[in-house]
């Protein structure tokens, strides 16, 4: 037995003594924000998600209600093995009760599995694979913000309705890109459109000009970008260079975050159609919160992922407060039984498969002349009501759904 192990054992023994029944008046909760803090998704979650979690605790006035919250954070580097190790250590040794955020679907699925084993709570905001609440759903996992199905449905559905009948896909050549294309193509055909062609772009890619030329030559109404992050930024930047939209074709980003639009600048991003679950300038509630967030986070407006971390933790704290307990099964049941209601996502609910239902929004990126200042990027085109935005409960293949 090594020194470290002995120390750990001692600490555990101590914890057992100090946490005895004599001090049960307060509920002590440990929250772990697990996300990408250095890689391609660091800007859409990262430290901003930790800040959002802190704001949730402060806004809820948890301490006044006898709930002591401690927040820890770690970098999963977008690697499932690293994410799984951290989750295990957090649950087994550090006493973490709930894990938040976790972008990158492969890591999210691993953490979901471990959370179920350990019977803890996992509220995901950053990952997008619809399978998390589908075939691989778990009673302990909630997917708060978005998924690939909802994004495809919002963007592709609305664009076909508005005359974008024929589609050409630029697809990142790995699992995520293909599943995004599959979801979107299904919605395009269901809405009466056609998929003319698609091209598999090696991932990651810097130069999209050849593929954009093929997209141009296809004369499809819409060029769908089934990719993410730096690939999307490069593709959009070069589409604007090649005059794709000036030629009458429309560009549809199937996974675009406001941080990507900020990186592109409006000159290159203007006219892009995209779906998000949250935008800072939607209503008074989102504006008030977002301005407070930006003041604490270097002037950067929140992404929908960071907003989802805030709202998810808030809903969790409400359940703990109502029960005066942090028992995972009881808290999860309470969370699913209580309608969600917060200033960022409005009213909604959590389904048995873990899917949070709230409105989704189809936006169009403003032109530089329409924008009144920094971060004034989106025009609201259409609100997709919660009931229509997500995959119907019966179609996901989640074993928790009976009937």
């Amino acid at each position: 037995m090594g020194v470290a192990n002995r120390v750990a054992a001692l600490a555990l023994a101590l914890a057992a003594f100090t946490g005895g029944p004599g001090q049960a008046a307060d509920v002590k909760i440990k929250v772990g924000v697990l996300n990408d803090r250095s890689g391609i998704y660091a800007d859409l979650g990262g430290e901003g998600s930790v800040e959002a979690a802190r704001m949730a605790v402060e806004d809820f006035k948890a301490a006044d209600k006898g709930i002591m919250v401690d927040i820890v954070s770690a970098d999963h580097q977008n690697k499932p093995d690293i994410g799984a190790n951290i989750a295990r250590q957090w649950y087994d040794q550090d006493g973490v009760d709930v894990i938040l955020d976790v972008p990158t679907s492969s890591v999210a699925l691993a953490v979901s599995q471990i959370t179920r084993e350990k019977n803890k709570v996992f509220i995901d905001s950053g990952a997008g694979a619809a399978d998390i609440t589908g075939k691989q759903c778990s009673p302990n996992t909630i997917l708060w913000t978005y998924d690939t199905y909802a994004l495809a449905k919002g963007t592709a559905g609305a664009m076909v309705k508005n005359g974008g009948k024929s589609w050409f896909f630029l697809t990142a050549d790995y699992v995520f890109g293909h599943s995004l294309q599959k979801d979107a193509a299904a919605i395009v055909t269901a809405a009466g459109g056609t998929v003319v062609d698609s091209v598999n772009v090696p991932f990651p890619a810097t130069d999209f000009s050849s593929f954009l030329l093929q997209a141009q030559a296809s004369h499809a109404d819409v060029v769908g970008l089934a990719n993410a992050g730096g690939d999307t930024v490069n593709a959009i930047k070069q589409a604007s260079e090649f005059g794709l939209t000036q030629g009458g074709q429309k560009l549809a980003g199937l996974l675009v975050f406001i941080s990507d639009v900020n990186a592109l600048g409006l000159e290159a991003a203007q006219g892009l159609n995209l779906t998000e679950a949250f935008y800072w300038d939607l209503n008074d509630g989102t504006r008030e919160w977002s301005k407070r967030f930006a003041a604490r986070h270097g002037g950067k407006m929140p992404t929908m992922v960071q907003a989802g971390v805030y709202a998810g933790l808030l809903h969790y704290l409400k359940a703990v407060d109502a029960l005066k307990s942090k028992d995972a099964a009881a808290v999860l049941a309470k969370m699913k039984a209580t309608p969600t209601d917060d200033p960022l996502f409005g009213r909604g609910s959590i389904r048995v498969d873990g899917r949070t239902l709230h409105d989704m929004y189809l936006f169009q990126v403003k032109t530089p002349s329409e924008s009144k200042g920094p971060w004034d990027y989106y025009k609201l085109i259409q609100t997709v009501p919660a009931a229509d935005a997500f995959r119907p409960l019966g179609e996901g293949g989640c074993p928790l759904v009976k009937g």
Partner: protein
Amino acid sequence: MHSIFGIPTPALFGQLLLGLINGAFYAMLSLGLAVIFGLLNVVNFSHGAFYMLGAFTGWLLLAGLGLGYWWALLLSPLIVGVLGMAVERLLLARLKGLDPLYGLLLTFGLALIIQGVFRNIFGVSGLPYGVPSQLAGARNLGFMILPNYRGWVIGLSLLVCLATWLGIEKTRLGATLRAATENATLTEAFGINVPRLVTLTYGFGTALAALAGVLAAPIYSVNPNMGADLIITVFVVVVIGGMGSILGSIVTGFGLGLAEGLTRLVYPAGSATVVFVIMIVVLLVKPAGLFGRST
């Protein structure tokens, strides 16, 4: 419609031209690498970081001082070149006489540090940088739409490559440089300050990388990882061309761009791999590279 091997000719020409433009970036970056390897015997893994620094310096000049693209094109290579010289003087010079592996490790570590610092300050999503207004727009060449900016990239990089090649092959300074590459001790005996020559060469190589960075800023995402994404392909170019061969890196740079362009048309999914396949074939047939001298 005319076609060659079942591919419509306009599409073929379009892809070839685009391939050539990508080749221009490869050529400029591998040129700097080749010059540095030729003279310093250093496998400069921080080349990608200097390329990224070039693009970021362009952005900083614009955001901080309001100096636009044309100023960046001039100033950014100068600034990064001076930085490169400082790196050579303060760090690389100390490794003289050691196994080249140490130089590789040093420059690789340096690249990681530079990228990490920039990631911390600027995040990973990237920064906006637009095409200069004089070069905005596109023209219809009949077989494809060519953005004016891409035309400019290919013209300028051809010019730079040609000037570098002429400078090294045809001028007195170039002759000294080649002599120092061949035999540094003997060259020094002729009263030539070889360490200074080495510093200037490294500075020039990094300046070339920075110039490529500024050229790339309006069309590629300006982010801390932009160099790391490109550097592997550039090394492949140098290996195929023959380590240290100036002409080899220029010809191979453009050639691989073309090969990639063609693959994108015929079998898109393979376009990222094709350069490696070519490398393997070349190494099997000519282990010293196409233009390299076997030693």
